[in-house]
């Protein structure tokens, strides 16, 4: 029996305890579906100086339970509950979070409604960035999805939004398309409110993504995120002024029989009233091969935290291999080379190499 079957059986047995086995199990698998994933990582900076981890550390990266409840054929409740970094909250270690929890009601193929906490639908990675079995590399691209690690003050978009979304898919001239339009509270950059409970102003954040598949193996898309954040005075009062955050991206991927590639370009601005606006950009391009169980890959990432300055940029060149050990079970190993300009706010001009490896499993 494979590992994922054992884990599924244990979970079903636990949930079904006290019920008669046959009908209860059938009811459970028809109406409630339990999936999940886990990953363990190792990182080591190879040089003495750098911004990586010179100690070489294991990271109990995450354990997630994904639960889908299907009360009717049109209604779905979906949630992803995560325990990150060996969460032990009694000792203030790790993180426990709801990655998403939403209700989805199906009205038509071109129109479904969601309500709840959702990933922000932006680009290629955000909706799968925690589900490590779903992508080849150890981490998602920092240059587009974690730019705070490469010198930007905030990310191009928040990970999550609490609100409503409309989404759907269809065909146009024999080609597939799909869209998501999400309206949410947005991020609270001041940390004064829980943005999944209360907005810090009346302006709602809007995220949208449109994807088109001119042919089966090719996907092209555009993403947008816009929000306004309240600016506080030194005493913490609302100044009435708003910081505009606007980001858009163009992205695409192509997957052939033996080779695949993807690319994403993100442009963003932070526009504070009465102050100079900050324009920034991020880019990533990845190429991979398909050799049976093996997926060798290489990726180039570049981030410019301030387009008006020339001495603050950062890049990552990484290469590695992803090996499918079993159904849903992957070994990844890669070398990441970081290069940065002297005035990059995070990397400070330090150039270094990191070895990253992980085991990830999804079921």
């Amino acid at each position, binding site marked *: 029996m494979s590992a994922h079957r054992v884990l599924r059986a244990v979970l079903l047995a636990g949930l079904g305890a006290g019920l008669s086995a046959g009908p209860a199990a059938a009811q459970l698998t028809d109406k409630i579906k339990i999936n999940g994933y886990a990953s363990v990582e190792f990182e080591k900076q190879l040089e003495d100086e750098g911004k990586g981890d010179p100690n070489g550390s294991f990271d109990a990266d995450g354990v997630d339970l994904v639960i*889908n409840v299907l009360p009717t054929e049109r209604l779905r409740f979906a949630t992803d509950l995560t325990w990150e970094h060996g969460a032990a909250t009694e000792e203030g270690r790790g993180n426990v979070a709801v990655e998403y929890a939403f209700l989805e009601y199906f009205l038509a193929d071109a129109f479904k409604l969601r309500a709840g906490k*959702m990933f922000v639908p932006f680009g290629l990675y955000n909706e799968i960035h925690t589900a490590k079995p779903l992508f080849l590399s150890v981490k998602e691209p920092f240059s587009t999805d974690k730019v705070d690690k490469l010198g930007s003050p905030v990310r191009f978009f928040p990970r999550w939004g609490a609100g409503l979304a409309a989404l759907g898919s269809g065909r146009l001239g024999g080609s597939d398309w799909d869209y998501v339009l999400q309206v949410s509270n947005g991020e609270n950059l001041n940390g004064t409110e829980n943005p999944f409970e209360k907005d810090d102003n009346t302006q709602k954040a809007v995220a949208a993504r449109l994807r088109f598949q001119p042919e089966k193996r090719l996907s092209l898309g555009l993403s947008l995120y816009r929000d306004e954040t309240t600016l506080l005075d030194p005493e913490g009062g609302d100044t009435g002024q708003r910081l505009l955050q606007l980001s858009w991206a163009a992205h695409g991927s192509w997957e052939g029989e033996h080779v695949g590639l993807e690319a994403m370009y993100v442009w963003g601005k932070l526009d504070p009233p009465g102050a100079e606006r900050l324009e920034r950009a991020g880019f990533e391009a990845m190429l991979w091969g398909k050799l*049976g*169980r093996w997926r060798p890959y290489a990726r180039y990432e570049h981030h410019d935290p301030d387009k008006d300055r020339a001495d603050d940029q950062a890049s990552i060149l990484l290469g590695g291999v992803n090996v499918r050990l079993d159904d*849903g079970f992957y070994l990844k190993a890669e070398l990441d080379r970081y290069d940065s300009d002297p005035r990059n706010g995070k990397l400070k001009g330090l150039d270094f190499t990191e070895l990253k490896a992980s085991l990830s499993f999804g079921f």
Partner: protein
Amino acid sequence: MRSGLLFFLSLVGLGSTGAGPGEPQGYRVVVHASNPVAQLSADEVARLFLKKVRTWPDGRMAAPVDQSMTSPVRASFAREVLQLTAGAQKDYWLKQTLSGREVPPRALEGDTAVLDFVAAQQGAIAYVSDDTPLPPSVRVLKVVAP
């Protein structure tokens, strides 16, 4: 020791991404007898089973039913209609499920269970072995090339 060696050889030998569930098996795509749709293209059938489309042309909800992942009839159907290996199907549904997009169709064990379900569900679509007798409430859906 031997199993470890075989595992290593399977890795370096660039083995297939999914185990083949058996010999090719003929199949027929079936629907409820009251379903007004007489035929679909293979691509349209694939879109229903991959849940890229969840409704019939008249707007009724479709209820696709798979057989178990180890079933030879599923392997034949997946290869010819979905154009996916068993491993690729698992990868597809893992991505759909873990990203919150969609959950896979229900999977039933064997032709009898599948035919019972299709007979009871007007929106159902399924596949069974081509030599399995069909009850009066189930009929064959003609699948044509796209």
